[in-house]
């Protein structure tokens, strides 16, 4: 048999892999596709949550300064009137009831988001059972159970299986105080995955200019949507398991999980591959993408602010 397998490369290249020959044009197309894929789409998507946070802060600043100027104005006029009318007591009491606004703290309209932000901003990687110190040059912190987390964000970065065989043995488990790093890491990983454009796979419909104004359903695009939503659903299942300590986050993950499951089921069958259905799937995919990217952006903001 070794004799037959000798020179397998040329045997296969001349027969079953002959179609794998690539031209200069093909290489050029790949190059163009890669170069154009580097647009920082993620930042664009994050722009919306960042913009809403900024808008909230500006609004609070305006209202705060307005309240403050009213306060000064009221105080001055009250001082003037105090000698004439003895009405200052009531006003003074109402002023004391106003809580001071903390401009250093990010304020979210959604109470759930606020809870998530506050909790994750304060969350720290456990100190126990580390095998690499924070001072070491590495960008991650490794623990005895093989789990490594980014020193910067606290997101899970890898799992070392050690002597275990990934194909046979069970995956090593995180400790309870590592759970949140795993959850954040999974959300971040899937948000990045789902943002990757796989031209032309992500198009569920083709527009054929040569034929006219017809739309054609791209089966590969629907398949890709199915694959991605299913992988996302599975990751969210694990994230749900580890997110009990922060019910508000669990609630958000649950919503994404339901969306991913619904989309995975809807895109599993190709029986009704109409253009309308392809469009619906694409819209659902965009909605799912937006949900996970926004949750990831919230987590990112909290982790960026962790040392403030």
């Amino acid at each position, binding site marked *: *048999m*070794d004799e*037959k*397998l*000798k020179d*397998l*490369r*040329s*045997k*296969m*290249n*001349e*027969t*079953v*892999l002959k*179609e*794998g*020959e*690539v031209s200069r044009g*093909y*290489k050029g197309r*790949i*190059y163009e*596709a*890669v*170069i154009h*894929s*580097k647009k920082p789409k993620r930042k664009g998507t994050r722009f919306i949550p960042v913009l809403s946070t900024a808008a909230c802060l500006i609004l609070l600043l305006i209202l705060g300064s307005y309240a403050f100027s009213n306060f000064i104005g009221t105080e001055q006029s009250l001082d003037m009137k105090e000698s004439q009318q003895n009405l200052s007591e009531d006003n003074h009491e109402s002023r004391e009831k106003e809580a001071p606004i903390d401009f250093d703290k990010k304020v979210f309209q959604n109470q759930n988001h606020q809870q998530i932000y506050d909790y994750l901003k304060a969350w720290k990687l456990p100190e126990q059972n580390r095998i690499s110190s924070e001072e070491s040059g590495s960008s991650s912190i490794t623990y005895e159970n093989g789990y490594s987390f980014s020193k910067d964000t606290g997101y899970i970065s890898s799992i070392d299986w050690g002597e275990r*065989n*990934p*194909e046979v043995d069970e995956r090593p488990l995180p400790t309870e105080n590592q759970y949140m790093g795993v959850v954040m890491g999974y959300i971040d990983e899937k948000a990045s995955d789902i943002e*990757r454009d*796989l*031209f032309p*796979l992500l198009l569920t419909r083709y527009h054929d200019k040569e034929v006219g104004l017809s739309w054609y359903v791209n089966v*590969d695009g629907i*398949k890709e949507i*199915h*694959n991605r939503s*299913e*992988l996302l659903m599975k990751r969210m299942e694990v994230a749900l398991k580890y997110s009990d300590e922060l019910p508000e986050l669990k609630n958000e993950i649950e919503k994404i999980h339901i969306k991913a499951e619904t989309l995975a089921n809807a895109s*599993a069958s*190709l029986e009704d591959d109409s253009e309308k259905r392809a469009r619906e799937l694409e819209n659902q995919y965009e909605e799912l993408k937006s949900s996970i990217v926004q949750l990831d952006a919230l987590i990112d903001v909290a982790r960026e602010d962790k040392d403030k």
Partner: protein
Amino acid sequence: MGEKKRENEFERNELLRELIDDYAEQIKRLAYTYVKNWAVADDITQEVFISCFKNMDHFRGESSYKTWLFKITVNRCKDYLKSKWFRSIMPLRSDEKLKTVGSLDDNLIQKSEGEEISQKVLSLSIKYREVIILFYYEDLSIQEIEELTGIKTETIKTRLRRAKLQLRELYKEVE
């Protein structure tokens, strides 16, 4: 500062061009040996270079670019094969399989030795096909295969042995 940034970007783009020139064909063919579909192999090839380009700054040079690219390719292919879609749909869209079975005319024409062994290798199950391809086709050492796939040395050796046994069986069937 801006000058330096442009220089870096230029270097990155040039490196990408070189890597595509050197490895696009090998990656496409390697991907095909896993997924057995040229359209999917094309998409995986593109994804591999996108991933490579995005992570170029993190490449620490602990392995060669070839090993790194192959590793991304193997992982992408396995992700694809693991997906439920692939498992449930492939039997229904078995045009690739039909091609390998061939028409009556094809069967009447005696296949060359090269074609026969190539088709037999492709018909092996993925875990045996993988080691045969990496060892005999890509000419990688056991250590390199271990690094690339994360499969232990002993397991690789066992699989190679069993793969060859299966190929031998396939030849017996023909006889």
